[in-house]
């Protein structure tokens, strides 16, 4: 790929480096969406590593039956912290980070709609993560080391009541989620306002890059799902501090109500996490197939459809609670219906590949991994949605395997793809391709060893959240293999981290448009100047850079 000359005066790269203090101050006080995006991403990466290490510790404990590597209390804290951290402090911020960075660039805007709110949202979310881990010190007073919350990431009542969870660790859990939820709502609001109000001239809604559409729907979901969680956390605080009885079963309160409130949040939450990953896929797959996305209007409609249907399925996490036959039947149906719009997406990606010229660059490798794995994860989801089947599979390692297949096999894979794809834009340097391939293949192998095999103990009756198990159950060999797979993933992750650091200093210069791509972010310098675009761009189709590169056959001719 040829070197570039850009018309944009590139000030960021060559600006003399200030003293450390100035740099720190600049980042701490910035309201620039790119810097905030990068801080989100960096912060999330740190938590991804921490939660990954927690996962590995669980895997060491479970590798052999009746192991004594950690105590039951510690194990219970580990899965609580792992789940909470991964979902709230790795998954959410990394996606918001990419959203912050990319959305304004892709729609030709100068910044987010409310830059200061943006900075506020980041810092308050960051404070939430700090609070969660502070529980290790503050959970039962400063002396009580190792007193992190141990109520599980969905913290079912009444285990969270003062009687069953004394001390402050559960309060730190509640507070951290409450606080970071405020940040999430702030960022989502910002993304919606940016997309609806800051598009460059010509960027009609039906020309919006799919990534922006997916962030729009994700953000919409944030309003209607994080808020119920916030409400439920407020109720829990009232119970714990003011002696209210929302979830106090002794006073007539209901444990099931908490489950409903949590999963009204919890189910759409998993789509909040996966939709941005769909967004990355919808940008990356076309570029490396050298074809326009197949069926853009259907993709948008499917996204909106998933958004709405996802609000009606929450009780599929509660099939074993005793909802009664009609309830189980209803939620079985609504859950299964989600496979229709999701299937449309999968098939449209497939059709995008069809007839293309597929380049197996590293971002594309990860995207293809995503595509294969997401299908399996979705199909195990369908098995779980069959409520009688779920009476067997629910709360077993089959569920753990199902959701890691989506959360790791789909989302983490797409996050890695996004790193390889947009890192050149963010830093001006390419990530090393050799290391990237090592990272991909090792992670792929580790992933499959871990999570393919993990389904089986579930079928053999192994419940989740147990710190140890009996030797006579036939689970031992499988668990050992699963743990080994986890270690392989760990090694692959270390290669990735090394690549991030190494390529920042030694990577190949990227130029403005290393992938020969079509959306607006590739029209400005890498990294983009503070003001993003020297001149506000104007667009006439979904792929403005395609139009520019193929003046004889512009996209705008084909858009209905």
């Amino acid at each position, binding site marked *: 790929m040829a070197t570039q000359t850009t018309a944009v005066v590139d000030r960021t790269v060559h600006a003399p480096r200030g003293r450390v203090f100035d740099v720190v101050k600049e980042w701490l006080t910035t309201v620039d969406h790119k810097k905030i995006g990068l801080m989100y991403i960096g912060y999330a990466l740190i938590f991804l590593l921490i939660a990954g290490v927690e996962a590995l510790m669980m895997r060491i404990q479970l590798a052999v039956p009746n192991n004594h590597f950690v105590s039951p209390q510690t194990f219970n804290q580990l899965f609580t912290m792992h789940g909470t951290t991964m979902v709230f402090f790795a998954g959410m911020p990394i996606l918001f980070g990419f959203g912050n960075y990319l959305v304004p660039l892709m729609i030709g805007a100068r910044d987010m709609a409310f830059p200061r709110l943006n900075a506020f949202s980041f810092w308050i979310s960051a404070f939430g993560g700090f609070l969660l881990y502070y529980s290790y010190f503050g959970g039962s007073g400063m002396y009580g080391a190792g007193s992190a919350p141990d109520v599980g990431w969905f913290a079912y009542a009444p285990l969270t009541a003062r009687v069953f969870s004394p001390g402050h660790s559960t309060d730190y859990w509640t507070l951290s989620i409450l606080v970071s939820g405020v940040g999430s*709502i702030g960022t989502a609001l910002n993304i919606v*306002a940016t997309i609806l109000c800051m598009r460059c*001239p010509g960027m009609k809604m039906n020309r919006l890059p799919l990534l922006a559409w997916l962030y729009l729907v994700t953000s919409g979901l944030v309003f209607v799902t994080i808020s119920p969680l916030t409400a439920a956390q407020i109720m829990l605080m009232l119970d714990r501090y003011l002696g209210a009885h929302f979830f106090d079963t002794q006073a007539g309160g*209901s444990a099931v*109500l908490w489950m409903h409130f949590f999963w009204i949040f919890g189910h759409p939450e998993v789509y909040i996490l996966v939709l941005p990953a769909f967004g990355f896929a919808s940008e990356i797959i076309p570029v490396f197939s050298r074809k326009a996305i197949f069926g853009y209007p259907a993709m948008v409609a499917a996204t909106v459809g998933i958004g709405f249907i996802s609000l009606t399925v929450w009780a599929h996490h509660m099939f074993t609670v005793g909802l009664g036959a009609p309830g189980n039947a209803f939620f079985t149906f609504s859950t299964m219906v989600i496979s229709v719009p999701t299937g449309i997406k999968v098939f449209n990606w497939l059709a995008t590949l069809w007839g293309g010229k597929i380049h197996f660059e590293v971002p594309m490798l990860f995207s293809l991994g995503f595509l294969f794995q997401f299908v399996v994860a979705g199909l195990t989801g369908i098995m779980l949605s069959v409520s009688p089947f779920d009476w067997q599979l629910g709360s077993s390692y089959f569920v753990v395997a199902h959701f890691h297949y989506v959360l790791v096999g789909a989302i983490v894979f797409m996050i890695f793809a996004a790193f390889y794809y947009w890192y050149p834009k963010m830093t001006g340097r390419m990530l090393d391709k050799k290391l990237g391939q090592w990272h991909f293949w090792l992670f792929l192998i580790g992933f499959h060893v871990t999570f393919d095999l993990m389904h089986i103990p579930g079928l053999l009756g192994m419940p989740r959240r147990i710190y140890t198990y009996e030797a006579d159950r036939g689970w031992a060999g499988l668990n050992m293999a699963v743990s080994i797979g986890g270690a392989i993933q760990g090694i692959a992750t270390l290669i990735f981290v090394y690549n991030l650091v190494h390529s920042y200093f030694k990577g190949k210069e990227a130029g403005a448009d290393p992938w020969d791509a079509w959306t607006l972010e590739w029209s400005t310098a890498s990294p983009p100047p503070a003001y993003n675009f020297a001149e506000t761009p*104007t*667009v*006439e189709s979904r792929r403005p850079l395609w139009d520019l590169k193929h003046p004889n056959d512009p996209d705008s001719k084909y858009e209905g």
Partner: protein
Amino acid sequence: MSNVATIPHSAVGEWKQPSKGVVGMACLIIAEASIFIIFIVAYLYYAGKSLSGPTPHEVLELPIFTSICLISSSITVHFAGSALHHGKRNATSLWLALTVLLGGIFLVGTGQEWYQLIYHDGLTISTNLFGTTFYSLVGLHASHVIVGLIMLSLSLIFSLTGQMTSAHSEKLEVLSLYWHFVDAVWIVVFLVVYVFCR
């Protein structure tokens, strides 16, 4: 592959997009409404399920006067907005003052009600499920009234000191959207707490 510079600027007719403030406030209102819905669902779910007294029927009285005050403050804030739009500064201040006053009366009413409930009827948040759901729902609403009143009072001060001009009328518009929302929520809370579940 090809070199890319900036995208050329070509004329694209009229380019209009919605106002950031309104969109932002609409998002906030959706989020807040979701919070209220959860509290209302909890109220309905636990209605009549308390294991001990007092019951709503024994202790609640219809806060009709204060509710009328709150609802009418929606009208006054609307007039404040249109006065500002037409550049009538004194009228703006007057309408804003009236809004703050009406909202304040509502808050005082809630305060009195709570005082009565706590000190005479012995109902606190930890008494029973009714107390739990009642104080949290009405309290959540009252806290929104307080936030609204603070914002409105600030606008009133800006208006009195002449710092608010018709250039700010969109901002006041956004604030009044919030205030309408707080009033609308009260109608629902009123119906649920004082009418259907009493």
